[in-house]
């Protein structure tokens, strides 16, 4: 039912829901005048928006976790680089597994291995590693911002659908009530 969407989409292709100017004319345009089909269509749309919202919220959460991780890695590489430039060793207690720490003297060699994921680790010179980390930090922030934008937009759509449903429903209740006592309505009119 295309009439319940406005036809516009946001840059990620999420459709905008149409605002109902008049419940009566929307009903006439979409169905045989009963509200069930229209409410059903809105319900379906509502569910779709909700699923999409859950998906976007998860992406956002993972970005929100990723950003501090990258920041911490950046910090460590910078420390390594500073020590390397100063030509100093340093002692480290590194995590061996949970609750167990190994103790080691680290001599910065000028290279650092970055865990890229998918079981791949690549060795980079410090500056290159910093570039890569800075770039992925920027990308993660960008993706989070996009998620924010989509979530804002989705929330608007969800609220609009909810209000639309309530209005169609109220319209129906009112119409039924009026039908029940046409005399009273006629006198008032």
């Amino acid at each position, binding site marked *: 039912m295309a009439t319940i969407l406005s036809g516009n989409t946001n840059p990620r292709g999420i459709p905008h829901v149409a605002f109902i100017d008049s419940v009566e004319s929307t009903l006439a345009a979409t169905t045989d005048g009963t509200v069930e089909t229209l409410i059903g269509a809105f319900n379906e749309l509502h569910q779709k928006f909700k699923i999409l919202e859950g998906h976007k919220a998860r992406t956002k959460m993972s970005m929100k976790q990723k950003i*501090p991780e990258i920041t911490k890695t950046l910090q460590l590489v910078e*420390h390594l680089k500073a020590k390397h430039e100063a030509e100093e060793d340093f002692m*480290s207690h590194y995590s061996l597994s949970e609750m167990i720490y190994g103790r080691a003297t680290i001599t910065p060699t000028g290279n650092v291995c970055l865990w890229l994921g998918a079981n791949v680790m690549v060795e980079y010179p410090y500056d290159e590693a910093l570039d890569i980390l800075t770039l992925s930090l920027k990308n993660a922030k960008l993706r989070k911002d996009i998620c924010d934008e989509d979530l804002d937009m989705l929330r608007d759509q969800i609220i609009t659908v909810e209000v639309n449903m309530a209005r169609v429903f109220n319209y129906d209740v009112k119409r039924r009530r009026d039908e029940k006592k046409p005399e009273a309505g006629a006198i008032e009119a």
Partner: protein
Amino acid sequence: MGDVEVRKEDQLLINEFGRLNAKMHERKADRAVLQKSLEEFDDATTELAMGDGDDVKLMLGGESFVDVGEDFATEYCEAEQEKIQAEMDHEDAEIEKIAARQKELKVVLYGRFGSQINLEE
């Protein structure tokens, strides 16, 4: 019950209110996280000042401890504290802005719809 028709501009205001509500929740959660790490750094700084200054181990990168001098650790903690404090001030300012706008919206929307609308958490 007096029915008030929802106009397009009302819908936009209702949407804005809902959006702000979501933002408010998120900002408050973010702020709580910042608050916690600020307290942790505060504790760390106090411990550093009280300790005898030898053999300081600083957690870098979240997983490894690195031996550093006391000066480095103190400086590091203070720099982090300042950074977090600045972020928190930013969050506070945003939260205040959202609350102010929500208050405005409530006046308008309750004025128009009265008890037909519920604009609470």
